[in-house]
């Protein structure tokens, strides 16, 4: 028996290939073929109102103009994951377009037109850009190609079946005639788009699977790429802010006598919960802010300490949770064999993207402009509209490149604060968070406490209970998806556990930490669950007296893609080859974000407890790979992101305030600490999986298990506590 809670909207679910996107076409005023499609979503049948044959919706996915330039109106944002290249590759493939003629335009905010087919709002997150647009974009490309062929065939008076396409041209085989797409757009625009144009077979892919150079990087190497923080609209002023250091606190009294006389300080904006200083440049603003004497009215959270947070979640995890999944009879399973219990914990984490939070806003009486790099551009627009009281269409959002998202820019608190400040300023104002403010006013990766229980009989797991306690980010961020008391993100990778265990129960206890706001963080729920499951697996393997890889492998028959990845990585990593003392290898596997990944880390732990990661080898089956170089880069980056968390990642609260502030006390891995990383991609014909977050979730358990192998010490929390690993300090 299997109970899976009703999940009407499931982030991470692969777009359903059979879903009917309706393809529409038209001619743009300037003379260009426009193609759009949308997924009927009930509410969101939006293109209709804009559509007419000649004045086609100005918002569309694809535009092919008379010069042959193919523009993809790109709903997904580029934050380093390479979607500005890989997503247009999908379109160009089916369209048989010359890739150098493909350009991108950032989509304006409009959920109905540009909503992510999985989330139904305009969002870039959950490693799903490729997964979500894989089918829709291919259909659009294929449809456009059919129309262009049809147009050419009409002009030549031949049978379209005798035509083929390549490199943005239509060829007629028999006569050897050819026409570029540029010459066909006017005629093609008059045709009815086919709804079921055949898609290419994998074997025919010319672009997909090639390591293409990224389109966004040349400008980044020259320093000319523009991020949100680089906006300088005419007349812009510069601001920086201090929000109450205690969450939920308010401004009490502000003494601005000194700040006001600092040269370049223009205005001091005092709002309910924050104070901002506006100046001729950021330096004036910062000095002004430093010179303010602010008394805060801190409120009840001023007493909250980290011990309260842990006490609360540990107590919560004693309660039985909502059942998120059950298989067989967990109670019975847990009553047999040798029982083992272990609790695992993860701390709060800040995102700390290299580009600190920022937003530039110009509020005028009748309109508002926002310049920002956001993972949720329509939400950015909506919040600015709400703050200013303007109708949505009066709020123009210019979305920019993102200097690191990691989930931080799935939130619009920064836009909201900036718009409130900008309302008080009569010029455009760029609000830039200091790094300290950025670290201390984040929405943090929640603390988690996982109670694991399992029973072993003849070396096999016969009973399993996984109780997850943690914040329900989904309940705040996407309320419709929070159903039956289960946060689908918090249980992700726990309910779809890859191992074949006959009796199993996964429970979820919602526990909102006191004072500290929580949000999505790269790797989201699987970060926690993969860490707990894979750590526990190693402890169980040891108890069963079995090799960690062999133990896992014996339970993966029903998940062959993961089993293949595990076998590959074992070989590549030289699993079983002898290592010097205090060195160890650890493995972790995960079927997260639609990808199957197995990772082996090799570490050395010195006598003082210092851990050095020597090497990480990972094998991945992520389905069809669009741009293999991007997949490798994302895995390398994700693994390193995870290593930072494993080594240094911990945010703590004391007296209601976050204690970390900048990179000197919230450390990041540096180049001289990074191990060699090998990525092995498994050829696959399956639909593409997500990749941006998978490395993060892999690092922690793999390194933790390697430390376990090297020292015999089973770490149950992250980050790594070097004192625990020290071989005994000298007295």
């Amino acid at each position, binding site marked *: 028996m299997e109970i899976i809670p009703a999940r009407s909207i499931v982030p991470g679910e692969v777009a359903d290939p059979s879903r009917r996107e309706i393809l529409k076409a038209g001619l743009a005023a300037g003379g260009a073929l426009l193609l759009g499609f949308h997924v009927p979503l009930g509410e969101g049948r939006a293109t209709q109102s804009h559509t007419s044959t000649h004045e086609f919706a100005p918002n569309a996915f694809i535009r092919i103009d008379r010069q042959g330039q193919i523009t993809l109106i790109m709903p997904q944002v580029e934050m380093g994951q390479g979607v500005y290249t890989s997503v247009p590759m999908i379109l160009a493939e089916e369209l048989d377009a010359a890739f150098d003629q493909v350009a991108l335009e950032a989509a304006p905010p409009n959920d109905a037109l540009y909503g992510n087919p999985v989330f139904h709002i305009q969002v870039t997150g959950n490693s799903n850009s490729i997964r979500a647009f894989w089918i829709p974009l291919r259909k659009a490309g294929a449809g456009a190609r059919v129309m262009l062929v049809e147009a050419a065939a009409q002009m030549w008076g031949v049978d379209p079946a005798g035509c083929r396409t390549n490199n943005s041209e239509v060829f007629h085989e028999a006569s050897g005639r050819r026409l570029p797409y540029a010459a066909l757009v006017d005629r093609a625009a008059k045709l009815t788009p086919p709804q079921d144009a055949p898609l290419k077979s994998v074997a025919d892919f010319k672009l997909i699977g090639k390591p293409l150079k990224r389109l966004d990087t040349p400008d980044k190497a020259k320093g000319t790429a523009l991020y949100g923080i680089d906006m300088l609209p005419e007349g812009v002023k510069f601001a920086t802010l201090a929000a109450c250091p205690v969450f939920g606190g308010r401004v009490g009294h502000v003494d601005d006598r000194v700040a006001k006389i600092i040269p370049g300080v223009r205005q001091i904006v005092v709002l309910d919960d924050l104070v901002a200083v506006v100046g001729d440049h950021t330096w004036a603003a910062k000095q002004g802010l430093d010179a303010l004497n602010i008394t805060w009215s801190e409120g009840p959270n001023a007493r909250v300490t980290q011990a309260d947070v842990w006490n609360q979640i540990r107590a919560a995890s004693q309660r039985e949770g909502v059942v998120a999944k059950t298989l067989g009879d967990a109670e019975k399973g847990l009553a047999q064999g040798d029982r083992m219990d272990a609790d695992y914990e993860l701390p709060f984490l800040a995102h700390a993207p290299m580009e600190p939070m920022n937003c530039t806003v110009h509020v005028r009486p009748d309109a508002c402009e926002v310049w920002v790099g956001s993972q949720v551009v329509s939400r950015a627009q909506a919040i600015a509209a709400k703050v200013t009281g303007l109708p949505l269409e009066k709020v123009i959002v210019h979305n920019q490149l993102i200097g690191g998202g990691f989930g931080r820019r799935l939130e619009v608190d920064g836009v909201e604060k900036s718009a409130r400040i900008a309302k008080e300023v009569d010029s455009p104002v760029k609000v830039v968070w200091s790094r300290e403010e950025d670290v201390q006013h984040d929405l943090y990766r929640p603390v988690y406490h996982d109670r694991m229980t399992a029973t072993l009989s003849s070396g096999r797991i016969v009973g399993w209970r996984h109780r997850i306690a943690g914040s329900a980010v989904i309940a705040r961020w996407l309320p419709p998806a929070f159903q039956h008391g289960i946060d689908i993100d918090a249980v992700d990778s726990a309910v779809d556990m890859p191992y074949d265990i006959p009796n199993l129960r996964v429970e979820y206890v919602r526990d909102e930490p006191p004072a500290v706001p929580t949000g999505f963080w790269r790797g989201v729920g699987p970060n926690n669950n993969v860490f707990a499951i894979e750590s526990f697996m190693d402890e169980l393997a040891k108890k069963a007296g079995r090799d960690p890889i062999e133990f896992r492998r014996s339970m993966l028959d029903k998940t062959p893609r993961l089993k293949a990845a595990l076998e590959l990585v074992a070989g590549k990593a030289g699993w079983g080859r002898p290592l010097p003392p205090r060195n160890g290898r650890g493995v972790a596997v995960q079927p997260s974000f639609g990808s199957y990944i197995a990772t082996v880390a090799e570490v050395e732990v010195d006598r003082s407890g210092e851990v050095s990661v020597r090497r990480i080898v990972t094998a991945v089956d992520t389905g069809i790979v669009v741009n293999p170089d991007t997949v490798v880069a994302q895995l390398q980056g*994700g693994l390193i992101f995870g290593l930072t968390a494993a080594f240094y990642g911990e945010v703590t609260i004391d007296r209601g305030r976050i204690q970390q502030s900048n990179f000197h006390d919230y450390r990041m891995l540096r180049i001289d600490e990074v191990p060699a990383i090998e990525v092995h991609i498994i050829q696959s014909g399956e639909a593409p999986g997500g990749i941006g977050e998978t490395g993060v979730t892999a690092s922690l358990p793999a390194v933790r298990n390697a430390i376990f192998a090297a020292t015999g010490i089973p770490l149950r929390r992250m980050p790594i506590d070097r004192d625990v690993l020290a071989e005994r300090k000298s007295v």
Partner: protein
Amino acid sequence: MTRLQINGEVRNADVPADMPLLWVLRDVLGLTGTKFGCGIGQCGACTVHLGGKPARSCLLPVGLIGEREVTTIEGVGATLAGAKVQKAWLGVEVIQCGYCQSGQIMSAAALLAGTPNPDDSDIDAAMAGNLCRCGTYLRIRDAIKRAAASR
């Protein structure tokens, strides 16, 4: 009025002498390629060259620059080492979000200008002050080696 020589041009800025160069570049002169990451010398995003040597502009008061030539990411391509590094960066496809990369490229160009054939320890010594949250470190190392090998 502070007189600065930036990327081979003379630029004047009416700013207080204690203002860090970073904000003069970004907010006053519109050279936004140099990035703000931490403001405390711990991330390297703001790295420029001062008389050819790498310097963190977030901690460098303009009043102390004097006659020293400033080179930023916008101008480093005009130097031999800078051009090599930028090319290798694209060749190896180092860049992800790219926000740290101006600083990375500046540090790498300064390294190559002084140490044409760096080994791994030279790369560590020159690059460990530059953080990359996207984790592009392995490719940075490769790209520096490739740039060193290129002519």
